[in-house]
Every structure is written in C-alpha cells, then in structure tokens.
C-alpha cells in the first residue's frame, strides 16, 4: 500500500512527498538547509525554538519541523523577513547565554554560536540576561556538567532521555522565563535516578549539558587513593 503523495513547492522548486512529511524534511530532501536548534531528526519534533520558521503565505510564519506538507503549498524558507526573524530569535537566545560556552570551549560544536556566526552577530544588542548567571549550574555529577544559563529549553535532552534511552529522568520545571530543566523531583543530578548515560550531553545543542573531563576521576571509591 503506497502512502498518499502531496505536491508542493519549496523556494520555487517542485517536490512530491508522502502525506505527513514535515516541511523541514521535504526541504532537506531538496538539499535546503533550514536552521533549527530544538529539532533533531532522531527526535519527535516540538517546534519550540522557532528558528525553522518558514513562510507558507499564512498570517504568521510556521515552524517547518512540525508543519506537515500540504498539496499545493508554496513554501519560502529564506525570505528577508524570515531571515530577519531568525536573526532576532538568535539574538534573544544569545542575550541569555553565559560569557563562555562550555561546548564551544571543548568540542567546539555549539549550534547557537554557529547560528550567531551565520547571522554575523558579534555584539548582543539586547539587555544582558546572563549577568551573574542567575539561572545557576549543577556540578553534582562527576561526569556531566549542567549549566542552566546556557540552556535554551529546546527539550532535546528531555526527549533524548525519554524517547531514545527510556530513562525517564528529565523534565522542564517551573514556567515562563524562569523555567529550566530538572531531574526527578528537581533533585541534583548526582542524587537523581540519572544513570549518566550521556544521551542528554550528546543531543544538547549548547553548553548546557557537557561532559566533564574524567582525567583523575576514581571509578571506584578507594581505588588508588591509598585506602
């Protein structure tokens, strides 16, 4: 049984995809790269970061990662307007980032910083929300560092923990501007049911969840400490 096909154009190019395919995936099939921070092809899309917004001729822009393709749809992924809003969203996120990204400093693959470079943002022209790192950090785990200030609430770690690893440890806690990620009933990572599998670190796009250096870390208490 073949799935129903829908025909649409993306940036003026025709494409036919199975019904239910997201605009983001269809664009990718055409080699069109729509930026995204919260979306990863391995994860269920949530449409939270809004960087993948595209113009489908509606009143508002729509998030490509969660928008199913429709017959006759005409999608523009890179208009000046779309790019202007993406740049503003990047700016908003950067204004909340700590001075240094732990990911940029280690593996160098901070996706938010990559976007900043893409949009040529050198100075963050919005009130600084990171001064004094009000969102705090959780250094309790011997292997994973949590920097809440670098967290953009993209939900990737939560879905990675839940849907890839089925460890069921993480959530968003609180609401609105002060919301952040948490473990169990908002326990310290080391005191939670986290098994340190590393999935959250692997899927995190920023410096919020990074690996700690393990040099000199004793794997078992007493080993090598002379006891």
């Amino acid at each position, binding site marked *: 049984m073949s799935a129903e096909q829908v025909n649409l154009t993306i940036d003026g190019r025709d494409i036919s995809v199975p019904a239910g395919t997201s605009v983001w995936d269809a664009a990718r099939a055409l080699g069109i790269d729509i930026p995204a921070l919260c979306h990863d092809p391995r994860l269920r899309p949530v449409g939270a*970061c*809004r960087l993948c917004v595209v113009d489908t001729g509606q009143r508002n822009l729509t998030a490509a990662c969660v928008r199913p393709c429709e017959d006759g749809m005409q999608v523009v992924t890179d208009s000046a307007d779309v790019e202007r*809003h993406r740049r503003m969203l990047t700016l908003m996120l950067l204004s909340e980032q700590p001075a240094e990204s732990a990911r940029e400093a280690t593996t160098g693959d901070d996706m938010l910083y990559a976007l900043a470079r893409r949009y040529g943002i050198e100075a963050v022209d919005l009130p600084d*929300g990171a001064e004094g790192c009000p969102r705090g950090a959780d250094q309790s785990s011997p292997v994973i560092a949590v920097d809440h200030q670098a967290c*953009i*609430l993209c939900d990737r770690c939560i879905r990675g923990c839940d849907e890839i690893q089925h460890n*069921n440890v993480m959530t968003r806690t609180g609401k609105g501007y002060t919301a952040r990620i948490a473990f*169990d009933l908002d326990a310290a990572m080391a005191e939670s049911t986290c098994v340190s599998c590393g999935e959250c670190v692997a899927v995190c796009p920023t410096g919020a969840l990074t690996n700690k250096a393990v040099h000199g870390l004793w794997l078992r208490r007493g080993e090598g400490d002379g006891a």
Partner: protein
Amino acid sequence: MRLLKALMALQESSGAVTDASLRELARAENVPLYRLQGLRSFYPVFRKEPGAPVQVQVCRDVVCRMAGGADHCHQVRAALSDRQDVEVTEVSCLGLCDQAPATAINEHPVQGTAARIRACATGDQPLPDAPMPDQAERGLTDPYRAAEEHYGSVRDLIDAGSPDAVIQALKDAGLRGLGGAAFPTGMKWDFTRRAPGDEKYVICNADESEPGTFKDRVILESHAHLVVEGMLIGAWVIGARRGIVYLRHEYGRARRALETAIGEAYRTGALGESVFGSGFAFDLEVFVSPGGYIMGEETALLEALEDRRGEPRNKPPFPTNAGLYGKPTLINNVETFAAVPAICRHGADWWAAQGAGDYKGLKFVSVSGDVARPGVHCVPWGTTARQVLERCGGMADGRALKAFSPGGASTAFLPADRLDTPLDFDAMQEAGSALGTGAMVFVAEHRDLLDVTLAQVRFFRNESCGKCVPCRIGSHKAVEMVEQVRAGAAPTTSVSLVELHQTLAKTSICGLGQVALLPLVDALRTFPDDSSLQALKGGQA
C-alpha cells in the same frame, strides 16, 4: 485528568504537594517522578510546602492597578507584614475587574484598600458576600421563563430536529466564537461533525482569565443551564458522548452554580445514559483548572486534560479533527454555548433581529476601568462603545475619556474619538483594534498610558508558559527595556520594541506571544502625542 485531579486533591487536603506525597503517587500511578514535578511546578495552584493559614492574593493587573494605585500590592503587603498567619502574594487578574481593586482571601473575593484587606484577613471584619449578578439584565439570551421549561430546545431537537439544521441556523445567525477568536461557530460545528471518528468530545472553555474580562463568570453564576444545554446540543449535533467544562480555579461561585445545574439536568433526564429517553447518551463534568491564563488557549487546555504541562500545541492539526486524546473535539466559549439554546428555540432570524441595525445578535460585555458603574451588560451587536459607556453611568468622577480597550488585554487601545465604533468584530478591526472578548476597559484623561499598557505587557510576560523562545524571552526583554527607560537609565539596546513585537507576532506558537507586546507597541502609533509614551520614542520606538 487523573494525575492533575490527584495533585489537586493532595493540595486541598494538606495544603501542599510535597515530595513525599509525589513519591507515593508515582508508585501508585506507575509514572516517573519527573512527570509529576513537571506538573507541580507548572500550575500555580500547587505548592511544595504548606503556606500560612490565611492566603491573601492581590490582583496586580491593569484594572485593579488603576483602581488601587501602582503601589496597591505593596500597601497590602505592608499592612499585613506583622502577621505570621497571613501570606500575601501578587497574582494575575482574578476576573473581578468590576470589584477593583480585587483581592481573594482564602479564595473569597474582597474589594478594597489595604486597610480593608487587613481587616478582612485578620478577622476584624467578616468576609463580605460578593454582589449577586443582576438576573434581569443578563437574561436576554435565556429563552425560558421558568425552570420547568429548561432544556426545551434540546428536547425539541431530539424529537424532530436535524443536526444539519442546527448548523445551518448557527451559520444564518452569524454566531462567531465569543471567547475572543471570532471563529464562525456553525463552521466549527460542521468541521467537528464531519470529522471521522466514533469518539468525540465537547469542551466548554470557561477558563476566562484575560484582564478586563469577567462576563463568563456572570453568565455561569446566573445562567449555567444555558451553557449545559448549549453543550448538550453541540454533543447531539457532532455525536459526542462526553463533555467537560474547563473552569478557571478562582470561579468558586460559578462552579457551584454549574454543579447545581448539572445535577438538576441529570435529575430531569437532560443528561445521562438516555437523554429524555431518546437513547442518546451524554455525560458532563466540571474540571477545575489548576491555574494560569495560558490554559484558556484551547490546545494548552487539552494538554492539561491529558495530564501534561499546559503548553500550547503546534497547529494544525486543529481540535475539530484532533483534540482531546487526538479525537475530534468541539471547543467553544461559555457565552457561545449559552447563545445556542435561544438560537435553536427562536430561530436564526430572531437572533439576527436582536442586533442594532444590520448587526446580528446579542453580546455580553465586561465593562471596567474609570467608569461610574462597572459590570456586565448584555447589549445588541452594533451598540456603540459610547452607548455602553453611557449605560455604565459614563466616566467616573466626570473625568474625560483618554482611551478605551474594546476587547481585553490583547486588544489595542483606541482614542476617545473612536467611541462611536459599533461593537462588532469587523468594525472594531477597521477602527484599529479588535472586539476580542468584549472586555471594555475605559481609561480617563489623567492616566499614564505607558503605565497602563506596560501593565498589559507585564501580564503576558507573567503568564507566558515558556515553551517557545520568542514569547518566553521576548516578553521579558520588552518589559526590561521599557523599565530601563522609565528608570531614566541609558538604553542598553538599539533593538526597537516594534522589531521585537514583529518577531513575537510572526513566530510565537500561540496567541499569547503573538499579542504580548501589542497593547504597548500599538499605543505608540495610536497616541503619538501622549506625554507618558514620549520617553520610549528616543530611538526606542
């Protein structure tokens, strides 16, 4: 609903939802701890530790701020600072804008200054009875003269009506969603009726929480049976067996009225396994929201009913096709459902004739702010804002009008020269605003318009769910930017509020983010000469 009901039961019985109680619940329900933490921390009704025995919640939003002064909340706090048994918190709009400045003491509404709040909170004065709604004024859409006649419309429909005829009548009547979005009601019912699936739901959105809006509270308190019947007719038309009224937490008296009406409907056979012996089954229950303005966004509401954090869904799909548990779901506002029995009973022509001139139907408006007699009025569509103001005794203290918001916090303020605009979705849009929920807030000449519009923006910031970036961060930045300017500090940004607003309007998931900065940004355009707004103009606007 099961988990949230369990959390609410814990909160009610022990004054808190503690870690220990959540561990027990996680075991009993076989759900991971993180899920319960996500719920407990999202909904404002829940607290981790019990608080003081007397809870005083002071409304911080625009109408109460106008009535009580900018430092009203601070004054209440100061007046009770010596009392260990009293805890004062500032909360979003309580839906008591006709009793401003409003406070809830252990969920009991009290109007007045800090001194009166202290007297009531400490027991020096008894808690007053809230004023009862005026039955005659609000009865215009009630087709029944006596309780024995209730549910006559649905009884007739079941005997000899057709679902398609009801849909046609709603279309002919020109009824549009009265919760603010103005979606054509007949079309929504039609979509839901035609959506494939045997399992469907009817939900009444009674989570009225937008500053300036309190008409649904009054309708529920005085005419709950019309809401029940409207839902019943909706269920019969689309083929649903189950309905839920999603009611805002603070509406205690509305809840009691609704539960009385539902009990009565079960007793008389209007609800239950076989409605009036027809074999058509419909069960209806009230779900009390654990709090938060965002829950009035219909997909956030659905998330709550499915025991998740009330964060709006991406649309499409729309609830008409994929709503509660992914099933087709008819969601309408209290006032919309309440209009249905009269339209069915008297016909679309009768409904249309109730309007003024070419306008069709009746509209409940919530009137508050600087008016002599704030309250809810049922007026013909097409009544002008000026006529509404006159009906409320004109401006308070004989002051001149500076601005009015025709539809609630999410609609732009209009200048006094638009006072002759008729109450109508299209007419208000042409005038430069929107009818929204019909929450008319009148603002007198002496008011600081920046303070008034900033209060609206603060409300949206405070009520943002935090799911999407533009709303979560953008609403916060906007408030910060304006507060910097007001404090006389040098602006730390060259980004303008207009640019910020455009990104929020274009990229936010739901209506909250889309309108969060609108009242303020629009005022800069509509009131170019207003002195209070001048400060924002130097490179800022």
